[in-house]
């Protein structure tokens, strides 16, 4: 596929999203499309299991769904001590959705873009987690929840007090505030950039491997893909666990 502009062109082509609009009001159609499709896949699977759930001997699909549910539930129980109807389903959604995003990385880099170019779509970036918008959408949503729960549990005054009076006491108020704000802001940024960076770099390496001579590619892409299986699960897991941890921190009243 190294046709226009050599290898640089190939790389840039693969990393350019399919977009409409301009300025801030640009929409990355591929990101929106694939994440929506993957989200629908997730919802469809779990909903179909939930509809015919049985307390007796579970089938294959239910077994898998239960495994996921129990896994997430265990994570939540380990870190979060309290009652919340939101955190566990949130964790499940994040884990599955991010995992499905990342899994798109394992598809051959050219497969979908060739198909789409045959249909007249020039640019296509199939892995939603290589789009900063996608990862930031998640982490900012989580950030909003953190702020929401901080205020809900501790009250506006309590939250303000935590921001200004810790860790060094009321006499160091401006410094405390600065520290706390940085700490809070760092949460969504690190969440989003960690996922984005890992997957972007992973995808980039797949693209670079795809530039090599054909006989070399399997020897490199195969081990990298296997390694990547670990990474995509790990990144999804990290995102979920950190979300749970941040939210349980928001629930903690000092």
């Amino acid at each position, binding site marked *: 596929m190294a046709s226009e502009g050599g290898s640089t062109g190939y790389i840039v082509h693969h990393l350019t999203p399919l977009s409409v609009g301009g300025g*801030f009001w640009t929409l990355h159609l591929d990101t*929106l499309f694939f994440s*929506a499709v993957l989200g629908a896949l997730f919802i469809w699977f779990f909903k179909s299991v939930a509809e015919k759930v049985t*307390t007796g001997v579970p089938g294959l699909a239910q077994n898998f769904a239960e495994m996921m*549910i129990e896994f997430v539930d265990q994570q939540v129980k380990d870190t979060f001590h309290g009652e919340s109807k*939101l955190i566990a389903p949130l964790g499940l959604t994040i884990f599955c959705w991010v995992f499905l995003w990342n899994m798109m990385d394992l598809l051959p880099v050219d497969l979908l873009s060739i198909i789409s170019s045959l249909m007249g779509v020039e640019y296509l970036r199939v892995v939603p987690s290589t789009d*900063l918008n996608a990862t930031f959408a998640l982490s900012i949503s989580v950030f909003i929840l953190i702020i929401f729960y901080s205020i809900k549990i501790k009250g506006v005054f309590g939250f303000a007090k935590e921001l200004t009076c810790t860790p060094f006491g009321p006499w160091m108020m401006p410094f405390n505030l600065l520290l706390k704000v940085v700490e809070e802001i760092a949460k969504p940024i690190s969440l989003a950039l960690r996922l984005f960076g890992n997957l972007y770099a992973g995808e980039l390496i797949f693209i670079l491997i795809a530039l090599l001579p054909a006989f070399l590619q399997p020897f490199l892409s195969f081990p990298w893909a296997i390694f990547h299986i670990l990474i995509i699960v790990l990144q999804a897991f990290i995102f979920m666990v950190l979300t749970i941890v941040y939210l349980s921190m928001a629930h903690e009243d000092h």
Partner: protein
Amino acid sequence: MSINATLIGQMITFTLLVWFTMQYVWPPLIEALEERKKKISEGLAAAEQGEEDIKLAKKKAANYLKEAKAESANIIALAQKRANEVVEESKDTAKLEGEKMIELAKSQIEQEMQQAKENLRKQVSSLALKAAEQILQAEVDKAKHKDILSKASSQLG
């Protein structure tokens, strides 16, 4: 690499997904899991209870057996005692009977001896009478000498 409106679209999708999961996916599944957990623990408890019951029943059965054994031993001992008593009793009666018989025989013997003595005396007295008759060459009048005769026979006795 720019942040743009895609972010907002993604956030909306995410919110919808979380809402849906919270509403329709998580509750039924976690409920089923809890229920199964309960079922399993109940089953385990029941199994344990059953085991306990069996142990108790076994103990009871052993007790019954022991009791029955003791009772039978008791009965046997009683029977033996009774048998001994019966034997003893029969021995006693036999002894008594034997003694009676011996007594009877003794008295009979006595009687016979008496009779024999009597006979002998009679014979001796008649013999003596005859001898005296011959000596006297005369007939002895039995009626006349009745006193002498009876005196003599009594002396012979």
